[in-house]
């Protein structure tokens, strides 16, 4: 038994573990941003806002349209390089947050406010209806076939990355790789020259040799990369993590330090008493929806731009469900819990794929593992990781 376990562990490739953790963190930060919306709405209304994933989807389209109007549409670019600046990214982020905030407000006003005094299950069905409506009505209008993607050129830092080396690769391999690349470049030049001259006799063999040299070089480079333990994080992803952190800090500030935040906490604690104490409950609920949706919008913009996801009207379904699970995992209604749950979900998902190296076929279960973790946590801590498990009042 122990022997088997050791064998399993030995089969793992720990050199990519840090990279996988970062992959998980990136995915997790998107989940966390969506989960915040779920958890805040649940906190004040006790309503699972199933349409939240669709707000996320609309946010990604808002970012897409902004990028198009900034001149990064496929027609405008036509395969050419166009310089960009960070202002474009900020603009996209802001537009997508504002659009999502407005949509969240509209949904709340039209679909949930009239249902406020009704049984919760009725609101839940309305939420499902809204979610379906946005998906399919969106399917009629939004460009989806082929699924558009935000041009990578909108990101001015797309070629820059941070490389952190935890354990360096063997030095001789690095030298070899460098030499091989230089040789391949030289041969490539010679081949291009020959091709321009049009010398057909030796062209094919030359092409093959050049190709082989190029392959050898890229193979060595990959080996260098895989022999070293380290991380490669593009600037875009780094920026994404920073933005997420800033947004979360902002949220913390709003909730903990402002008057509105105090009112939100009061409504979440006790709806009726808060109303009796003079809190304008309707306004607070609207604000909650706006903030939650705007956070989803920020997540959507980064998901589409930095994580390079092609857009479809059904884009929001999977991240939506995962973020919802994350919110429950952390303790629904609990804001730090949603962040923790989201990041945990992202990391668990990535680690399952990583473990696929020793247990072939495991990666197929990556979506299931999230639910297994959820059920396990709920059975032992029914309130979620950070939630308080209250006994239902009689």
């Amino acid at each position, binding site marked *: 038994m122990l022997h088997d376990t050791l064998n399993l562990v030995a089969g793992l490739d720990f050199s990519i573990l840090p990279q996988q953790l970062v992959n998980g963190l990136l995915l997790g930060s998107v989940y966390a941003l969506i989960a915040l919306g779920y958890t805040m709405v649940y906190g004040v209304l006790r309503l699972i806002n199933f349409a939240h994933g669709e707000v996320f989807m609309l946010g990604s389209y808002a970012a897409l349209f902004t990028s198009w109007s900034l001149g990064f549409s496929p027609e405008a670019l036509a395969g050419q390089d166009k310089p960009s600046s960070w202002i474009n990214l900020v603009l996209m982020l802001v537009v997508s947050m504002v659009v999502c905030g407005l949509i969240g407000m509209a949904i709340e006003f039209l679909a949930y406010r009239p249902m406020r005094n009704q049984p919760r299950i009725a609101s839940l069905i309305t939420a499902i209806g809204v979610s379906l409506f946005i998906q399919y009505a969106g399917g009629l209008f939004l460009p989806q076939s082929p699924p558009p993607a935000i041009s990578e050129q909108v990101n001015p830092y797309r070629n820059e990355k941070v490389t952190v080396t935890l354990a360096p690769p063997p030095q001789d391999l690095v030298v070899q790789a460098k030499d091989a690349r230089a040789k391949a470049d030289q041969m490539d030049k010679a081949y291009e020259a020959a091709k321009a001259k049009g010398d057909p006799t030796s062209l094919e063999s030359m092409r093959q040799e050049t190709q082989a040299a190029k392959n050898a070089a890229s193979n060595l480079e990959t080996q260098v990369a895989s022999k070293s333990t380290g991380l490669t994080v593009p600037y875009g992803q780094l920026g994404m993590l920073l933005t997420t952190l800033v947004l979360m800090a902002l949220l913390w500030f709003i909730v903990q330090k402002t008057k509105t935040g105090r009112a939100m906490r009061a409504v979440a604690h006790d709806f009726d008493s808060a109303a009796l104490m003079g809190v304008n409950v309707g306004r607070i609920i609207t604000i909650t929806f706006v903030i939650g949706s705007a956070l989803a919008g920020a997540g959507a913009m980064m998901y589409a731009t930095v994580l390079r996801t*092609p857009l479809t009207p059904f884009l929001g379904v999977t991240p939506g469900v995962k973020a919802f699970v994350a919110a429950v995992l952390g303790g629904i209604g609990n804001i730090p819990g949603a962040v923790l749950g989201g990041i945990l979900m992202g990391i668990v998902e990535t680690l399952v794929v990583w473990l696929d190296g020793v247990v072939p076929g495991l990666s197929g279960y990556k979506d299931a593992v999230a639910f297994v973790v959820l059920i396990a946590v709920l059975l032992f801590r029914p309130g979620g990781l950070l939630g308080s498990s209250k006994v239902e009042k009689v």
Partner: protein
Amino acid sequence: MRKTINIASFFALATSIVLGAYGCKDSGASGSTAGTTGTTGSNSTAGGETAGSGGTTGSGRKDPAKDGSDIGEPIKIGLVASQNGDLKPWGDDCVKGANMAVDEINAAGGINGKKVLLLTEDSNSDPVAGKNAASKLVTDGCVGILGEVASGITQQMANVAFDAGLPIVAVGATRTDISDIGSNFFRVCYTDDFQGPVMAKFAYDYLSLRNVAIMTDNKQPYSVGLSDSFRKAFEGYGGKIVDEQKYQSKETQFSSYISNMKSKSPDGVFLSGYFTEVGPIVSQMRAAGLNMPVLGGDGWDSAQLQTSGGQAIVGGFFCNHYNNEEKRPEVQKFLADWKAKYSGVPGTTMGALGYDAAKLLCDAIKRAMDKGGKKSKDISAALEDTSDFAGVSGKVTLKGMKGNPAKRALVVKVTANGTTFEKAYEPEELAK
């Protein structure tokens, strides 16, 4: 009770606005009665060459138990295409191509004086919907079915067609074992048993790759089959498959698979899935710092590769059926006709394959009618008899091929706004 009236009035309001203002008229008489779905009392074997259940004709494949529909007036043929969903670019081209072929035949007076009617059903890029679409066409009285572009959907349609005794001509379904379903199955494209080795040879000889990683779309029978045949052929040439990562259609984040693959240091990656996922995968691969060549099968063929793959996908290679730059007269005529009818050029090869499939089926119907055939099974027999049918995508010979024509394959290179021809492989070339 007041509430009920409330509801009723709102319903009336909604419906009247919807239906009244936009003149959407209800479909009057639904369902045509022409043609019934085979007769249960008929003999269980076709052709009368062999007796007993599970009998086979010369093709060595199982024969359908039913004779299928009668060839009526007009001659109804069905087309199932992915007019919605992920494979929409293919489905749209396929419908256009098939319509063009049928219009051409009707303009020339139809088949032996009878007009051809093409009934189109949407498969929504989904096997279950494709199966239902095929059943619908069977009940509508079609004598033969065209489609689909994807193997998973075709497999279900072929089952339906087999039960009803109708011939089916697949447009772009390359998975090899679909043709085992029965003697009613034919296609106008090559199979993965050819395509896989072509790409393996290309990778090994032309690109001089030795350590290749594979990424397979576990949900698509096409991708699974293509990966297997590539693996077999590539290992046969002496190469090594260092890793295989399995994802599923509709996933969007591949960074964890890519990190896994990176640790195995491959010098090339074979992506056997559809264009919907290939673009994002390659784009995320490049972002993670993997710069090796990428190659794939005909599932890549769409302008969408560039929209979702961006700069990253440029320089990738894939296997295709034909190329718009070819000088053959069939191709030139097809492109001119296409331009006249729809303007532009077909964005994917499915336009040409759809055209070929419709032409081939009509050709077979004509040959069957010339011989006095009256039923779907006669069309199947005529299809089985096809030799050297000159299609846009190359010559199609089905005689003794178990429904799988031996066709040429082209390897093309992805450019910033299209593809360029790189290398051609003939079937004989691979046989040695």
